[in-house]
């Protein structure tokens, strides 16, 4: 750990801002990441997730604000930051025309590993990626899941204290995604801080802390449970009926309905009242000559939370 006082945090971010011309990609963002936790960075595409992660890894200079990563100042102590982090992007960044072992050797050399340490870490990476016996295979011929695990292995060959994963499960099958998250937990249990961006809600549930960002701003921060409690004052119902889009439109016109959003073949309705709203929903639908096949009060999911948060931000923006 570096010389900066970070109070046990692996990453501290203060007023971090990135502008590209007049476009503000990251807007005055501040948050902390505890050592050894899995910190999930969530948000729709273009919200500024990658821009933030790229600033924290020293790939981009911030326009304003500061960040301390692993105890070192981003921008001022770039070399030290880089030596203490691992970075893996969705593109996996492997040399497809080299073999598994040659890729590991290369990244080992880049991070200055040699001799016994390189051998030991190579052994570890091959085991971790499940590539034993495939060391001489061309990386090009590996399936997505394998490439993903090999890329992770290469990114943390030098045992960094923090690893940044930028949408690491993009374009990988569900089983590989599951396995990959098991790996992330293993890393976290061994004390490595994992900073991961994703737009999969089920992945977000696996994180210790979630930062939700929307149009460059951090709009919520907390554990999945904490975030769900934000909707305690509201009730969420899942409604199954024939014409969900028409039904949603109709319900949206009611003053007691806060939000409606589609979830597969059904939709969710959140109400601001604490009293039971089932009969009200049924009545509105019947007036519109629609019959609900099913109306269930449900425990809110993270997705409900985020839809709620985004609606709040958009309404706020509409008012001003």
């Amino acid at each position, binding site marked *: 750990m570096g010389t900066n006082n970070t109070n046990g945090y692996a990453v501290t971010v203060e007023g971090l801002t990135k502008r590209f011309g007049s476009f503000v990609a990251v807007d005055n963002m501040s948050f902390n990441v505890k050592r050894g936790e899995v910190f999930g960075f969530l948000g729709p595409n273009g919200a500024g997730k990658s821009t933030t992660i790229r600033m924290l890894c020293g790939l981009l200079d911030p326009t304003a604000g500061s960040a301390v990563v692993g105890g070192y100042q981003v921008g001022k102590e770039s070399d030290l930051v880089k030596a203490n982090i691992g970075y893996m992007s969705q593109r996996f960044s492997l040399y497809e*025309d080299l073999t598994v072992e040659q890729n590991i050797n290369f990244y080992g050399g880049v*991070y200055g590993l040699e001799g016994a340490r390189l051998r030991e870490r190579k052994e570890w990476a091959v085991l971790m990626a499940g590539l034993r016996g495939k060391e001489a295979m061309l990386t090009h011929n590996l399936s997505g899941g394998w490439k993903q695990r090999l890329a992770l292995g290469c990114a943390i060959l030098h045992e960094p204290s923090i690893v940044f994963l930028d949408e690491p499960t993009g374009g990988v099958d569900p089983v590989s995604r599951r396995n990959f998250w098991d790996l992330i937990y293993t890393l976290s249990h061994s004390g490595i801080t994992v900073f991961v961006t994703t737009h999969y809600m089920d992945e977000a549930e696996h994180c210790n802390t979630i930062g939700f960002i929307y149009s460059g701003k951090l709009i919520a921060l907390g554990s999945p449970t904490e975030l769900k409690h934000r909707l305690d004052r509201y009730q969420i119902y899942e409604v199954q009926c024939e014409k969900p889009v028409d039904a949603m439109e109709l319900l949206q016109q009611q003053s007691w309905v806060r939000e409606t959003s589609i979830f597969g073949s059904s939709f969710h309705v959140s109400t601001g009242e604490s009293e039971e709203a089932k009969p009200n929903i049924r009545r509105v639908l019947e007036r519109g000559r629609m019959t609900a096949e099913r109306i269930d009060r449900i425990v809110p999911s993270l997705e409900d939370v985020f839809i709620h948060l985004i609606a709040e931000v958009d309404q706020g923006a509409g008012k001003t």
Partner: protein
Amino acid sequence: MTLNILPIVKKEFRQIRRDKRALGILIFLPAFMLLLVGYALNFDVKHLKLAVYDEDRSSRSRELVASMTQSDYFGLALALDSKAQIDRVLENGDAHLALVIPSDFSRKLDSGNEATVQVIIDGSNSNSATTAGGYMAQAILAYSTRVQAEWLEQRGRAFTIPLDIRPRLLYNPELKTAKYLVPGLFGLILMIATVISTSLSIVREKEMGTMEQLKTSPLRAEEIIIGKTIPYLIIALFSSTLVLILGWLLFDVSVRGDLLLLYSAILLFLIAGLAQGMLISSVAETQQVAYLMSVFSSLLPAFLLSGFIFPIQSMPVALQVFSNLMATKFFLSILRSIILKGVGFEAVWEQFVYLIIFAVVVLGISSARLKKELSR
């Protein structure tokens, strides 16, 4: 601080070795170009097919034809029976040129009068037509000199030619095209190995996303740059040596000058080329763009404006001025001087100074640009 360049150098060699196409471009293309240029690109005009329509059919006219066909330049392809045949044989390519000897040829010559012959040349290939016309004029002049000498001698008078030209050709006495072109080929080959290969290899990493990975690693920009250029420098030196050896074995082009001086010129030129490749890779985002930029900025000018084939002196002034921006022009002039003439440093120092300036300037701009991009 020590530079950590070995991992990249090793990786680069492994990738080149696996990429058969790159290997072919770097090593076999130069050798192939040498063979192609050496054997096919030949400006020597020899064994022109001559058609003769001899209306005179005298010993004089036969003497004139014989004086021509005895040389390597002409071969008697056809003896024609009518003037009408001339067009046909030129049209279908049976002859390159036709000689018409009128029926009064020997009568006029023997009576001391001026005789005329007609030469018709296929001008569709302007280069060989010009040369053929020149050879023909020389042959006819030589024959008429002989006739005049005979005529004077018969009258007991001595014959002297007021001006006797005896040119002596230095450095390439047989005027072999290959000897002229082989040194020039270096410029092209080294451009391919440096500008194109370097820019492609850096831009490929940008495209694949591996450059981003390297940027988040502790590797410094200069380590990435040097690590990525050294392999191409080594390969380019190797393929230059191959071209030198092949040129010597196949075309008898041996280096007359100092090898050390030659290799220092090559090294300087390589550095300039690598720098140019780096400059392109700091601008281009895709391999396609990098390739096009490399070809247009290096290969084409090297081919057209360096004096490799087309003499710079006969270009329009604007192009002549522009050609001074081409490092290849100065490099070729050094190469020809060292390889063919065997001159020392004192004869080529000006070109060396220019090459050094060129290399330093381009290297300065490109490493500053690339460093800025890579250390972000």
